[in-house]
């Protein structure tokens, strides 16, 4: 079989390396020969990238000499979500080409590629072009897209699992649909880490449309599928994952993991290169600082997160590659599959939030497959111990989180429609057929598509005032085309789906004395973070405590805080990733099953046993709601385990309902695990007088008017809307330099949002924003699923004092913006008092 599929000089090359071609590598060659698209699922390090390129290399090596004087055109397009494609590619593509002396030209095109080289690539296309999703969008919307891609044979999507669940993936799916039209013989190969539902990716990789969707489960049925190739499970040794059993006292709440720093440091010391993963930039900053305080032996510990200056990040990466570091504290920026060095230990601080993410991160350690990856989880509080336990169990049984089946975003569709008008005139019928062949858009109905088209043309408003200014027009030939070249120019400036929260540069200076614009740029922070501060506030950034002085133009001006200053603004210390539904279910199971507690540290199992004694532990399908008085307030605490975002939404809605029931709610607090609402009215007493009152609080209908009303005022919704407005092209992106235009003349999207809500509540952009809210910052979708699940299973436990399980969330109440040592001490004092309260009979 090997000789069948692998040409002799390839077989020779493999044996010269002392390698055996792997089963999945041969399988991909076979699929390609059979003219089939395929999805390869393989763990990191299984030779995935080489497997993806082999069919191309073989085909190009064997191709006959051409007589045609025209350039051959691109044969294979390789698309990666990362701009830094270089490292893996060098090893997996350029080496084999050089060593086998194959007549194949490879080039790269990213946002950094100079215009002159792009021009040359247009005139003399390489055989293989390595690029990013944004560049694909630019290329398929250019005037010469048709001739540029008509020879295209293959497209390889790397890290497909990381692209598809995002707007970036939506746009890529639409551009891919266009590529399929330009080159009907096009075959696709997707490379992915292990996922729970490969069918979604298989459907993504081929054109949909010639099937009838089943009305019973819209969105779930998959029509056409690419063939699935799974690398042998035993290729990779199972990971060795342990949970740090701290000798210190486990905190009740908080996310600092301060208690475990000495133990983390000891682990770093015992290994060659350790990656310390944390969930947020702020955690990264804090752990980094704490590790340096504990760094008695001058270990080389570096920091890597997305807000740091690019040059600084590159420096850290190259130092890692050269083996000059002992540890790197990093965030999701190092999640994806690039090898930076010989990592032999991964430490995950805080809860991993999802089994798939955990496996990805662990995959960073030891890229040789025969040796197990080694990882230590460091829970930062007691609930996180449960979550870590659940994640380890899931990882050991190879379970993955379910990806959310995704419906393509309408703002992305609007951007694409304009792009298609920029490349060539189109008929609405044809484009509708094309876009519904992309799996995420297979279910878009014609009316919605027409609404999007109207939006692109004139804004799609009921008041027809803009016909004269239409961006695209329907000609008498029945074709839509861009109105003028300026529209094309504008489109090309605004392409892409990554709308960074407007970033402000952090630099030294004072606003009154004029910005010290020569001051060193330390990195960037989100505008909304900067807006939460007032001059004099201190915060931690790039490993230093800084004093906020003000915002001038595009810069946050700061000064160095005096030594020993505690940063005042902790920002948001929790995870930004919500706890996956799958892990949440496991955590609920652990809670309900005392037999499983033997795997938990005694500090935690004792706590759960106490809960059983003082209140109760909900069964897996149940939602426990406790009510109790405390400090002249009445509390309601419940434990849905649906993640902070969903809980925040639920908390808002519960507060509204209690308000209406005249129970005078005063506030609420949400963690990843629980919600507490408190007020002046006795909720437990109301339930006693009016049985079923609490169950009714959680009725599904809260997602109707209450939600709509709340969304109207929510700042999160406005931010969501802004993103949609930028992607859809309603407002332009801000480019560096343009920020200098004062706010006086820029258009506020909040204003546009309010006007639309008042005048056109069904406008396509509001629909897009609502769809985002369902999965994004508000996680409404998850709240809906939960309300459905617990219907009829709400268990109320009236108590006279707080329950043990409620302690962590109660500690979050009224958290003063005290930071660091002081805050932890304060919290622990409070915890002591609270537990005292709990223990009283």
């Amino acid at each position, binding site marked *: 079989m090997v000789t069948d599929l692998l040409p002799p000089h390839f077989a020779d090359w493999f044996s010269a390396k002392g390698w055996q071609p792997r089963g999945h590598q041969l399988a991909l060659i076979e699929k390609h020969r059979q003219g089939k698209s395929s999805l390869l699922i393989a763990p990191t390090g299984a030779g995935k990238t080489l497997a993806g390129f082999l069919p191309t290399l073989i085909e190009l090596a064997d191709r006959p000499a051409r007589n045609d004087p025209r350039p051959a055109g691109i044969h294979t397009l390789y698309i990666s979500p990362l701009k830094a494609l270089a490292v893996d590619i060098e090893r997996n593509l350029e080496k084999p080409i050089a060593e086998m002396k194959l007549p194949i030209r490879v080039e790269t095109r990213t946002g950094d590629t100079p215009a002159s080289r792009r021009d040359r690539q247009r005139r003399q296309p390489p055989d293989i072009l390595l690029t990013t999703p944004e560049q694909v969008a630019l290329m398929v919307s250019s005037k010469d897209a048709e001739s540029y891609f008509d020879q295209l044979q293959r497209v390889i999507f790397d890290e497909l699992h990381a692209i598809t669940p995002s707007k970036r993936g939506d746009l890529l799916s639409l551009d891919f649909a266009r590529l399929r039209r330009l080159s009907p013989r096009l075959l696709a190969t997707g490379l992915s880490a292990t996922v729970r539902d490969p069918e979604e990716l298989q459907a993504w990789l081929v054109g949909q449309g010639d099937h009838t969707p089943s009305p019973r489960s819209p969105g779930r049925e998959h029509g056409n599928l690419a063939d699935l190739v799974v690398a042998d499970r035993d290729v990779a040794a199972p990971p060795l994952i342990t949970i740090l059993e701290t000798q210190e006292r486990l905190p009740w709440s908080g996310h600092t993991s301060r208690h475990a720093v000495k133990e983390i440091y000891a682990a770093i010391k015992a290994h060659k290169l350790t990656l310390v993963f944390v969930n947020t930039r702020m955690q990264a900053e804090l752990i980094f600082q704490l590790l340096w305080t504990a760094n008695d032996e001058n270990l080389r510990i570096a920091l890597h997160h997305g807000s740091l200056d690019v040059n600084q990040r590159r420096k850290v990466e190259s130092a890692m590659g050269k083996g000059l570091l002992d540890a790197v504290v990093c965030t999701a920026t190092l999640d994806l599959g690039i090898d930076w060095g010989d990592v032999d230990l991964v430490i995950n601080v805080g809860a991993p939030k999802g089994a798939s993410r955990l496996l990805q991160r662990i995959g960073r350690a030891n890229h040789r497959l025969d040796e197990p990856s080694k990882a230590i989880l460091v829970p930062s509080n007691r609930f996180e111990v449960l979550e870590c336990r659940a994640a380890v169990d899931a990882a050991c049984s190879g379970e993955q989180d379910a990806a959310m089946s995704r419906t393509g975003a309408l703002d992305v569709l609007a951007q694409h429609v304009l792009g298609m008008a920029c490349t060539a005139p189109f008929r609405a019928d044809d484009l509708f057929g094309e876009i519904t062949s992309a799996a995420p858009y297979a279910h878009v109905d014609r009316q919605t598509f027409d609404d999007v088209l109207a939006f692109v043309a004139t804004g799609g408003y009921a008041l027809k*005032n*803009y016909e004269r200014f239409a961006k695209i027009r329907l000609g008498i030939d029945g074709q839509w085309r861009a109105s003028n070249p300026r529209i094309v120019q504008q489109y090309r400036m605004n392409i892409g789906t990554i709308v960074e929260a407007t970033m402000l540069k952090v630099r030294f200076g004072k606003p009154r004395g004029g910005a010290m614009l020569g001051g060193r740029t330390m990195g960037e922070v989100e505008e909304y973070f900067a807006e939460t501060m007032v001059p004099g506030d201190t915060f931690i950034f790039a490993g230093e405590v800084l004093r906020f002085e003000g915002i001038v133009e595009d810069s946050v001006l700061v000064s160095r805080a005096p030594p020993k200053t505690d940063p005042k603004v902790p920002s948001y210390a929790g995870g930004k990733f919500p706890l996956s539904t799958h892990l949440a279910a496991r955590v609920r199971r652990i809670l309900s099953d005392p037999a499983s507690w033997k795997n938990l540290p005694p500090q935690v199992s004792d706590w759960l046993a106490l809960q059983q004694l003082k209140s109760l532990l909900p069964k897996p399908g149940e939602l426990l709601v406790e009510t109790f008085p405390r400090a002249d307030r009445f509390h309601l605490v419940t434990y849905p385990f649906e993640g902070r975002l969903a809980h925040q939404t639920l908390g808002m809605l519960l507060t509204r309902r209690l308000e209406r029931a005249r129970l005078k709610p005063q506030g609420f607090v949400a963690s990843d695990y629980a919600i507490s609402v408190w007020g002046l009215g006795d909720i437990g007493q109301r339930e006693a007088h009016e049985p079923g009152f609490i169950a009714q609080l959680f009725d599904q209908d809260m997602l109707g008017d209450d939600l709509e009303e709340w969304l109207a005022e929510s700042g999160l919704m406005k931010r969501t809307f802004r993103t949609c407005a930028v992607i859809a092209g309603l*407002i332009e992106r801000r480019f560096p330099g343009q920020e200098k235009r004062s706010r006086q003349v820029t258009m506020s999207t909040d204003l*546009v949002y309010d*006007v639309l809500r008042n*005048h056109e509540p069904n406008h396509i952009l509001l629909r897009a924003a609502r769809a985002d809210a369902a999965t994004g910052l508000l996680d409404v979708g998850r709240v809906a699923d939960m309300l459905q699940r617990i219907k009829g299973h709400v268990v109320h436990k009236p108590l006279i004092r707080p329950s043990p399980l409620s302690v962590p969330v109660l500690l979050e109440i009224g958290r003063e913006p005290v930071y660091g040592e002081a805050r932890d001490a304060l919290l622990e004092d409070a915890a002591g008092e609270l537990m005292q309260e709990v223990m009283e009979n």
Partner: protein
Amino acid sequence: MDGVAPSIVVNGAVLLPDRSGCLFWPEQRLLIVADMHLEKGSAFAVRGQMLPPYDSAMTLGNLAQVIAFYRPERLLALGDSFHDVRAADRMHDECRTKLLALISPLDMLWITGNHDPEIPPDLPGARHAELTIGPLVFRHEPQAFSRHGEIAGHLHPVAKVVTKKGKLRTRAFVSDATRLVMPAFGAYTGGLNLRDPIIDNLFQSRKFNVHVCGCTRIYAVPQNRLFAD
């Protein structure tokens, strides 16, 4: 539009700020609006940004309300009433009719601004670059060294107020005994934060009074409660 609205005294004239952003001078039965920026939405549409085409209708609707409430004899538009010189051509017929109906019964005074150096010729009313009425002088753009009863617009002042309950960014009147800068009246107008040095430089030793537009009334806010963006 509130019985207890505080008044502002500039160069001896008693003026009533309204939460809508307009200013009423009872002694003269004169209503003043600044920076309406009519047809700002369509100005963006010309450049390909299709903002909702409802701004002129909203601005004129607000204007109709304050006219009905104060019943002025004279209406003074303090410049930048139109977003650009072509604005009137782009205006929807309904809006144009409404605008005419609003201003025709009144003694209309147009101050020209940098956005509208020319007022559409078919509209009634006198045009002025600046205009003196009693102790007050009306001009669009505040002048650095003019402190004798100047009423101006142009800057679109907004205040960011921080309280225990949260933050609010809202339009504001900024004044001292000698001059006043009005907020923008237009529905789509952005704003300049009062903490900007431009504002400081207009007032003697950087001391000024601030009246912010709340949802139900005008509030006087001490200077130390204002924050930069």
